[in-house]
């Protein structure tokens, strides 16, 4: 095919496209081009389950954040006349009280605040570490990649919970921030693998080659060209990490190796209710249901985000 012919073909194709657009305009249709982010946002907003979950989550988080104003009682102050009260609206003990009269609705609110606070630190710390390690391994490959991946393999051979328990037992957990950092420094392996995989495939792409030819530095290529293209999986993973962190922190605190009294955390509240499961059933029930609600909503949001970032899924 000669040059001229190609140009002619191009012109024809262009004219055809223009004709389609024109006819669409005639029929009153508008054609807009959307960026990846706009598409993802639109898909997420159309995901009913994810949007509902997001609204519930925001309400729970806001209630926990403003626990000082919402909680009818202090979390440690006993309401002595109403000891062991079942859930009631009269004395504003919506979730009942324990044996010494502490209001469990207030305690659950403050506990949620601690647990969510811990989970957000865990998600941030582990995301930063996971992106750096996964990015370095995927971009540079070779020996660094090998070393890092063998290290994560090795961590997989020992139960995660056991490592966590040993670390928090001997490093003296107890305060929420300490627990959060111990968890954060262990939660990055899954994300590191995902980021590594994305970097491995993206670094071979033409646009990265073009950037290299133009003389872009490694850090510019990593942060300006590759990283934005991997943000989808990173955001999904960070979201799911919040749910996982809440569950693991609750388990640690329940076993007595995580957040410890006087800090209120949902796992601690459940442990307090463990001894009176059949008599004061509300003590273990409501903090547990709160965990389930939060984790379920986060999982649904994460699922919606995953669909939203997946280019194979169309906007309806």
């Amino acid at each position: 095919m000669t040059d001229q012919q190609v140009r002619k073909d191009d012109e024809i194709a262009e004219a055809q496209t223009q004709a389609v657009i024109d006819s669409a305009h005639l029929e009153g249709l508008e054609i807009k081009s959307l960026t990846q982010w706009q598409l993802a946002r639109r898909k997420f907003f159309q995901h009913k389950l994810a949007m509902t979950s997001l609204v519930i989550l925001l309400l729970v988080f806001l209630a926990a954040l403003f626990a000082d104003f919402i909680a009818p009682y202090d979390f440690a102050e006993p309401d002595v006349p109403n000891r062991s009260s079942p859930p009631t609206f009269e004395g504003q003990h919506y979730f009942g009280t324990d044996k010494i009269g502490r209001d469990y609705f207030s305690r659950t609110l403050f506990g949620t605040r601690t647990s969510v606070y811990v989970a957000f630190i865990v998600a941030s710390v582990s995301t930063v570490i996971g992106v750096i390690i996964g990015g370095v391994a995927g971009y540079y490959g070779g020996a660094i990649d090998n070393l890092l991946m063998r290290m994560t393999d090795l961590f997989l051979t020992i139960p995660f919970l056991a490592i966590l328990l040993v670390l928090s037992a001997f490093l003296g957990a107890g305060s929420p921030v300490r627990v959060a950092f111990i968890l954060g420094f262990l939660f990055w392996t899954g994300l590191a693998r995902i980021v590594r995989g994305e970097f491995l495939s993206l670094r071979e792409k033409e646009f990265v080659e073009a950037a290299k030819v133009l003389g872009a530095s490694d850090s510019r290529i990593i942060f300006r060209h590759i990283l934005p293209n991997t943000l989808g999986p990173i955001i999904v993973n960070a979201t799911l990490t919040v749910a996982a962190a809440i569950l693991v922190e609750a388990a640690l605190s329940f076993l007595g190796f995580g957040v410890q009294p006087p800090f209120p955390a949902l796992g601690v509240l459940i442990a307090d209710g463990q001894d009176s499961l059949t008599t004061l059933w509300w003590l273990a029930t409501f903090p547990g249901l709160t965990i389930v609600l939060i984790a379920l909503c986060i999982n649904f949001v994460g699922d919606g985000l995953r669909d939203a970032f997946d280019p194979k899924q169309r906007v309806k």
Partner: protein
Amino acid sequence: MGTFIARRLLYSIPVLLAATILVFFGMTAVTDPISQIRLQPNVSQQTIQNIIDRKHLDEPVVVQYGFWLRDVFFNQFGNTALGDQPIWPDLSRAIGNTMQLVFISELIAVVLAVVLGVFSAKKQYSFFDYATTTISFFGFSVPIFWFALILQALATWFFLETGFRLFYTFGQSSFAPENAFIDRIQHMVLPIVTLSYVSIATYSRYQRASMLEVLHSDYVRTARAKGVKERVVTMKHALRNALIPVVTIAALSFGAVLGGAVITETIFAWPGMGKFFIDALIRGEVYTLMAWLMVTAVAVILANLVADIVYGWLDPRIRYD
């Protein structure tokens, strides 16, 4: 096949050695046996000096590692620091008890998850599909210890209401039971339900996804086109390939299942590895903890080996020579 297993076992040796390094130096980095013992009252200076001599704690860390390694491989993990008791007899008993729980619950989990996953995939977007999806989302979101407590509360409530003991919520066996086998099952049901629920939730999602993918593949369409019955297409052509991801995830989660056993056994007072681990942790018994970590590492490595063997059985293209 024999050579494959032998080669894989040989390949496991460096992994195992790396695990010993991780366990020993990791543990040394966060604590040391003496400082844990010093926290306990009624321990004389002479006792501590004896432990230091016996465990060579005045030598460099690398030398200590060597002595520990010798104990691990030739001395059944050696003795505890305080009391100088052999670790292995108690640990091996705990391993046996845990394996009862873990094997049965994993078997139930894999079988049920495969059945649920296959049916959800065959009837995608049906009521059944949505129901299993919902149940498995709850499985990801329910804290395992809370689930165990709810089961315990329900069983106790049932006993108090009816006076009939259906399931026990505590321990492994009753004192002088009428029928030892039934008694053991009554003790096992609740821990097994707890342990398998979370696994079922995860595995059935994988099974559903992989089954959907296989059912839409070209070779399945070909099988249908040449007139193979739908039942045979599902069970023989599709299922076999769709099982591979589930085998992978079941093997990879073996460590997580042992972690789940720690929580479950603590709540149900099952005298297994989980309870053994928490007890050692509370006592600050470093050598027992390291032995425990090594045993789980070996278990996870073996689980992965089993998975590799199963791959070859599922997919004849994978050859082992």
